């Protein structure tokens, strides 16, 4: 896994994001969301930079906000982010076996969420609001309804096959 170094960051991109949000403190969450969209995570250097560029903000505050919200990741996420919904409805209808099977498949121990090849990140979310279709799994933006461990296996196989073909 590579983490960005100061020189490899596209600082122009960061500046243009800050500018589009008028360097406003109240836009910090939106700014971090855009940064994460661009870089797939929040690199430490960029957080420090934001903390010095915006008035009345410190790098510590930026770090505090970034670690407070579940959406933000301080480590690079996989190319495919697999979100297993574990809201009440999904939980009652068996979301955990699906999640466990994914963690096993990618060899993810407790506390690790991204596969070694950097292709998949597996995480849970509390509720996606698609409770009628429980259990639900979302891969990048696509929603897969009424999942089972078998169906999940086929979906991951398909993604892997597509990856191989390039």
């Amino acid at each position, binding site marked *: 896994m590579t983490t960005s170094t100061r020189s490899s960051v596209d600082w122009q991109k960061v500046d243009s994001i800050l500018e589009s949000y008028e360097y406003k403190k109240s836009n910090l969450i939106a700014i971090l969301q855009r940064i994460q969209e661009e870089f797939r995570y929040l690199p430490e250097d960029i957080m420090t930079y934001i903390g010095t560029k915006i008035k009345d903000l410190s790098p510590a505050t930026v770090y505090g*906000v970034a670690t407070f919200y579940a959406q933000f990741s301080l480590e690079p996420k996989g190319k495919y982010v697999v979100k297993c919904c574990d809201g009440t409805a999904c939980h009652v209808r068996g979301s955990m076996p699906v999640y466990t099977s994914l963690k096993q498949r990618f060899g993810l121990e407790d506390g690790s969420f991204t596969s070694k090849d950097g292709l998949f990140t597996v995480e849970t979310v509390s509720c996606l*609001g698609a409770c009628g279709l429980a259990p639900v799994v979302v891969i990048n933006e696509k929603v897969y309804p009424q999942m089972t461990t078998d169906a999940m296996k086929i979906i991951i196989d398909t993604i892997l096959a597509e990856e191989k073909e390039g």
Partner: protein
Amino acid sequence: MGTLNINIQDEQKKAQESIDAQGLRVLVCNGTGCIANGSNDVIARFKELGADVSILTQKDKMTIVPTGCHGFCEQGVLVIIPDLDITYVKVKPADVDEIIDSHIKNGKPVERLLYISPKTGEAVHKNEDIEFYARQSRTSLGNCGKINAESIDEAIAKHAYEALAKVLEQNNPDAVIDEIEKSGLRGRGGGGFPTGRKWRFTAANKGGKSYVVCNGDEGDPGAFMDRSVMEGDPHKLLEGMAIAGFAIGADEAYIYVRAEYPLAIKRLKIAIKQAEERGYLGKNIMGTDFSFDIHIKEGAGAFVCGEETALIASIEGERGMPRPKPPFPANKGLFGRPTLINNVETLANVPVIILNGAEWFSSFGTTTSKGTKTFALTGEVNNTGLIEVPMGTTLREIVFDIGGGIRNGKKFKAVQIGGPSGGCLTEEHLDLPMDYDNLVKAGAMVGSGGLVVMNEDTCIVEVARFFMHFTQNESCGKCVPCREGTKNMLKILEKIVRGQGEMKDLDTLEELALAVKEGSLCGLGKTAPNPVLSTLKYFRDEYIAHIKDKRCPAGVCSALKTIVIEEENCKGCTKCARTCPVGAISGTVKNPHKIDQSKCIKCGACLAACPFKAIKQA
């Protein structure tokens, strides 16, 4: 009287004409649920085929209308053709050809795509005859699924912005607050605070800058009514906010939406732009002095931001941590200014109240809880989905009539209502009229209205552990009793589901529950112990079974499972022994095998591997 530069009735007429010109309207649900079931492909197929159809009815053309959520997500993709009085369920792209050829061209309904009532086993043609819809009273969800959520004309034809025009014309903010107060509307986000009173408190600080904030941070797992309103009828919400703004003297507003709802964000943005173009939002609305701007703020995944002071902090770009009240947001809220915070469903009720009157609204419901309430009905019930019923409807009507009973003929065990802040209701509550006060008395709460139905196969202790895990995870950490208390309660619950609990743990749980409730600042901590307390009250025997008998009555908790090989069915194929990751299975070829229980980790791999179904879980 204020003078408006538009005549809303004329606008409605124009909008209706444009809808009439659409010919045969085919409504295809395009909410998050149906999109997951492939509704975009169904729409594409209809459009492909629809171009050159000569249609049976007098209409000379067909229009495909992508709508918001109908609420009946499990039966998606839903296709409704009002002119033909028909509702099709579970429609796949491949079915579209037959719908067009058989029904639209030749007047013969496609029987195999009709909804089959789980009660009578018969096919149902009309939407209003499906028992799921038949017993509902849809107010805030009234237009969801009936209009194209991305078309302002369709909303206007269904009376959008008529209530706003009415209040602007009458030009009496106090009268608006009176009307809302008289209606008896209470906050639909959980607490049930009287909406009119909240408006009056905020209006009392009129003069300088003030804000309206719409709480769309629907964080309760198992609830999705706000998502449906935002996706299916966004103009109703915008109108409700504008009316609130006019009443309290605010000119700026924010909608705080969870980032988990990208479609809701997209449709709200479209709706805001359309309303601004028509002059229903923005500067000098409808030619009056009233100006009102609405912005969208995306959340970033923190349940606690549903609490109003935490939500304000989050909009300001900070960590979403609650602060003590007073000062209440009505006095000192967003950016230090007076702020009115209402939830999506509450605001969506406002235009309907203004149009139909407070008396009409209060004719629904019970003495203390007026109007209708949406519930997200999910879990082990036949018809899952979003429903709206008068306050005071019983659980029995919801689960057994609208919900069509428990799936697969299983037995009803309990309903979890109100999410992580709520509690369990059992068989003895089936005939309790559900309203704010009755539910609190029963140890639960309406909350946002998530209703998860559980059957005999659901382990209540595991559910309590699930909720505690959730609140422990979402506790912001500000108050020590909540931060540390939930952690310790979770530890105890984990111990119990592992079969390592002791009887004295139950007392500790209750003691901790009290400390967390008393010692926490905000609603999250004050209600976090509820799921544990209510299950301890109604299902204490299940806790005891886990502790004393080391047994999970529902057979869910893996640590308490035993996996055994039935000698008479085992053919001695050795497959299980080869599959077992810990070498717990031994035996020789063609002789029955055995599991060493001290080594077994209950992973279930052997269960799946056995070709003779000789391995059972007890």
